[in-house]
């Protein structure tokens, strides 16, 4: 049997490079495919060319579509999908509850509410500018943070969170946020309403190079911070008291994780709308395929989240060419049955 700990970290490196390879393949596939399809050799030529190797067997229009429309979109997918994956993994680990998901426990709706308030009342519908690029994500982050803190407070009793109360608290908070969103939309005009409908199901079409630096910093930084907490999350999966006994400053770690997860989700929601189930499904898949050790679950969830969101986006772009399906429809269509399966399984394992 004996898997020494050193080979264990080697094994993790292999697992992650495997996921990385899959991610590369998915990214290159989605660079080429779409309403305007670009053959693989041209795709690679364009990429090489933009990296400074001069190859010229492609047309300028191909390069335009690829570099100005698809590439930023894929990179944004990568950051947001990965971010949602790792945020979900961190929240599940922290709540010690495999049913936790940013959407279910109200982070997404909190972010959505604040994002809509910002769009309707502050920025007045304009979609460009520094104010929007930075202000909107941060505002959404505050909303998400308030909600997740409220749910956490409501569902935690003496350090343990009970699944039923957690889900109920999430429902209550989501309902409240939904009502407030409705109230805000009452003041919005028709075009804002229409864009809200798309946005509420996830809309990737707004991805531009201007958004990317903000996404990179506001998602990359908290992701990096969460990755530093693997040992603490492992200890926490035994229970908060046990983690405390083992020397983990539990409250401090929990606050850091909550803030990081809320920041990632808030930024994601503000940029592309509400995308459900990625944060739920991805950590589970990583646990199923590899192991429950957070040293693999956290980075693995980032990679797998990036893979799944890119794949979902590819499907969303392909199935109704030349139109586009909202990506949230795809993730929910795959994620909701998975969620049901999960509840069945939990019921079985607890009885």
């Amino acid at each position, binding site marked *: *049997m004996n898997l*020494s*700990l050193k080979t264990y970290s080697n094994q993790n490196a292999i697992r992650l490079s495997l996921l990385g390879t899959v991610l590369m393949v998915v990214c290159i596939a989605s660079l080429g495919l779409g309403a305007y399809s670009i053959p693989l050799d041209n795709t690679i030529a364009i990429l090489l060319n933009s990296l400074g190797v001069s190859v010229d067997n492609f047309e300028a229009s191909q390069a335009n579509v690829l570099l100005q429309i698809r590439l930023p979109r894929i990179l944004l997918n990568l950051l947001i999908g990965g971010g949602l994956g790792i945020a979900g993994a961190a929240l599940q*680990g922290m709540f*010690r*509850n*495999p049913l936790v998901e940013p959407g279910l426990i109200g982070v997404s709706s909190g972010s959505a509410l604040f994002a809509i308030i910002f769009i309707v009342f502050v920025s007045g519908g304009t979609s460009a500018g520094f104010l929007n690029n930075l202000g909107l994500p941060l505002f959404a982050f505050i909303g998400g943070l308030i909600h997740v803190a409220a749910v956490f407070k409501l569902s935690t009793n003496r350090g343990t969170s009970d699944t039923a109360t957690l889900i109920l608290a999430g429902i209550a908070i989501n309902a409240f946020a939904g009502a407030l969103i409705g109230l805000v939309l009452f003041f919005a005009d028709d075009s804002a309403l229409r864009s809200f409908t798309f946005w509420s199901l996830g809309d990737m079409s707004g991805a531009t190079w201007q958004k990317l630096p903000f996404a990179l910093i506001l998602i990359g930084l908290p992701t990096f911070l969460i990755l530093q907490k693997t*040992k603490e999350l*492992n*200890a926490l*999966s*035994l*229970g908060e*008291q*046990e983690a*405390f*006994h*083992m*020397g*983990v*400053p*539990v409250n401090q770690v929990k606050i850091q994780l909550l803030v990081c997860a809320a920041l990632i989700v808030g930024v994601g929601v503000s940029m592309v709308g509400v995308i459900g189930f990625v944060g739920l499904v991805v950590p589970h898949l990583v*646990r199923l395929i590899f*192991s*429950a*050790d957070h040293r693999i679950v956290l980075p693995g969830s980032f990679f797998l989240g990036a893979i799944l969101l890119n794949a979902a986006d590819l499907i969303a772009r392909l199935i109704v060419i030349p139109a586009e399906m909202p990506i949230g429809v795809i993730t929910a269509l795959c994620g909701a049955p998975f969620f049901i399966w999960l509840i069945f399984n939990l019921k079985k*394992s607890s009885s």
Partner: protein
Amino acid sequence: MLAAKNLHYCIQKRPIVDEVSLEVNPGEILSILGPNGAGKSTLFKILSGEIPCKRGFVSYNHTGLGELKVHDLAKIRAVLPQHSQVNFPFSAKEVISLGLHQVKVSKHEQILQEVMEITRVMQFSDKLYQHLSGGEKQRVQLARVLCQIWERQPYPRYLLLDEPTSSLDLAQQHAVLKILKQLTQRNIGVVIILHELNLAAQYSDRIALLKDGTLQKWGNVKEIMDEELLERVFEHPVQLIPYPCAAGCIVASGLQNQAYQNLNQA
């Protein structure tokens, strides 16, 4: 020395732990016994630093609990709670190695090997923790806690266990207590909550009897092995039968007077 002075803990003005003072020296085993609801677990949590007490003072090696940082405290005491639930599919070995949280990576492999050997968890170390039996889970948790304080250190340390033998068979119960006895040679003091009087009498250096939150008696085994005292604490007839073991006798549930006389006549 792990010392507790005048501990007091109330829930809604009802005292759960009332004016309890205790001391545990490194190298000795202190068993806490008492009827259900005596406040054993609450006392245990106060000692481990899990819940702060309203009045009183707990110190480890002459440093108050309040002055110890979480990770410093974890270096001088390990705790095995009564129940630990693991909600994610960890293997037994992964759960055990969680105990190495504060230990240098270079030592991990050796400590894991030694601890898994002594707790005899090798044969199921690759199984999922959730699929283990109650007794196996308990041994895995014990192994995890042992990992935390296994490495020899120049300063005295403590191990606190809340009913570590509750789902173990006879052989395993004694195996666990023997491990604890060995541990005391590493300058470690052990505090253990037990229900089985004979087990406590056989392995403890001192016993504390707790009832209704107050310490009824605290002393070496011979002092505790007193029929009248035990009957009063457990509200059950008790008979001590002379037996060649450390305590000099074993504890049996006494027969009711009438039945006892009938037996004598027969």
